[in-house]
């Protein structure tokens, strides 16, 4: 349980800081995981264009991996990857996890192009109180 109580959070369920989605990991819903093969990838960026979750990571003008903390496993990237290339394959999450021992994200370079994600800041009852306005 979080140590904060009902008095310590901003009123009305307000989120009083922008960009907090960065700190909110939503990849756990996935049943299938895209596994990307850098050897096959031709960097056409079709997957990057189509991914509805901005989960395709890019560094120095090249695909750098998949952010599995946010990827929902929809398979669109694998579908859009040119059929002659097939650099992304969808595998069952349970099988992928068994293979990588649950590390997943580290191997695919999850944090590659994120800004400073500070998940502590996201939960900022204090910031609201400082403004003197949004405490309960």
């Amino acid at each position, binding site marked *: 349980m979080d140590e904060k109580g*009902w008095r310590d959070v901003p009123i009305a369920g307000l989120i009083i800081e922008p960009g907090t989605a960065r700190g909110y990991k939503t990849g756990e819903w996935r049943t299938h995981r895209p596994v990307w093969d850098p050897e096959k990838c031709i960097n056409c960026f079709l997957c990057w264009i189509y991914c509805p979750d901005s989960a395709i990571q890019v560094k120095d003008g090249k695909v750098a991996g998949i952010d599995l903390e946010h990827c929902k496993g929809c398979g669109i990237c694998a579908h859009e990857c040119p059929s002659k290339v097939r650099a992304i394959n969808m595998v069952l999450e349970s099988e992928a996890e068994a293979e990588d021992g649950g590390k997943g994200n580290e191997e695919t370079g999850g944090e590659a192009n994120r800004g400073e994600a500070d998940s502590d800041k996201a939960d900022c009852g204090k910031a609201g109180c400082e403004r003197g306005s949004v405490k309960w």
Partner: protein
Amino acid sequence: MTGNEAVAEAMRQVNPDVVAAYPITPQTEIVQIFSTFVADGLVKTEFVTVESEHSAMSATIGAAAAGARAMTATSSQGFALMWEMLYIAAGLRLPIVMPVVNRALSAPINIHCDHSDTMGARDSGWIQIFSENAQEAYDNVIQAVRIAESRDVLLPAMVCMDGFIVSHGMESVKLLKDEEVRGFIGGYEPAYSLLDVDHPITVGALDFADWYFEHKRQEAAAEVPVAEVVRRVGEEYGKLSGRSYGLFEAYRLDDAEVAVVALGSTAGTAKAVVDELRREGVRAGVLKIRLYRPFPGDEIVRVLSGVKAIAVLDRSDTFSTMGGPVFIDIKASMYAPIYDDSVYDDSVHGPVRGSTHDRDARDTGARDTTQRPVIVNYIYGLGGRDIDLEQIRKVYERLQAIATTGEAGQCVSYLGVRE
């Protein structure tokens, strides 16, 4: 002027930033008159015409979340159509003020007065203030702005008045000067604003099992200081206008043996009956509840504690076989103090902030049930059925018999219905 005219005048003087409203009988006049004020440039209000009351409340919520002082007004079916948004206004802690002209709910279709519409929303988190006449409706709208916007509160408030009886009845009403009203309500500083680009916020985000409960707990806590704020604002308003207001009006209750509890215009009728009965030597009184939500149960029980027999007149039914809503609330309040320290331990439940109950009274624990007044309920006046002096006199006569014998008989009765 009529109650509707008085309320429209109050809205003109409040000069809200945004009014989004839809016409419905018997409220129509309020927004119609107000729209002429907009057209004539007498207010700086952005008037949003909408296609339904659901949209009216939605637009009002949007405006309030953007930092505007926002108002709307409605009645009956329109009020019912706002339902979904009512809870959102309260949950988002937006101090919207909404005059509601009380009217029956369908079916069968009926445009006349009863309290079924707002009573259904008594647990929506809105503050509910009832008005006996046009003067009170006017005064209450102005005070509601201050009450809702109080930083201790931040809750939406509805100001209720009886459809046609008050909304269309002609009375003399004393208005404050425009600058007096503006001085009284002050400028508006929203607690938060979507348009405050220096402090970007998200309003209405998903709030699942992790924090939703805490936010609802905050909302419950916000209701606690309301009574104190209502009293404070009512006193201050009295200094300005000569008309002070509290949580309720205890009319000739000090030494009363029998009393009627009522909301809205019926309280005025009951006061006239009490004056007659007093001349005949009957110790009768009236409790007119003004602040209905949050319910000042402890204060009401205290003011009724010396009375032997009480009849609660409810202008709506709960269809629960338990009687009317006001009756149920008062009965529940008589059982035990709600915010007794022994029941509500601060360390467990949080402080009862701004509680109006003094500690000595609370320390007594459970009430002495042997001293409780006998209490009965009458459902009356549904769909605009008249209630007159004679009917209320009969209620007092029964109360006198109850006070003598201690026998209540049937607990819930229907007054003025064809048997």
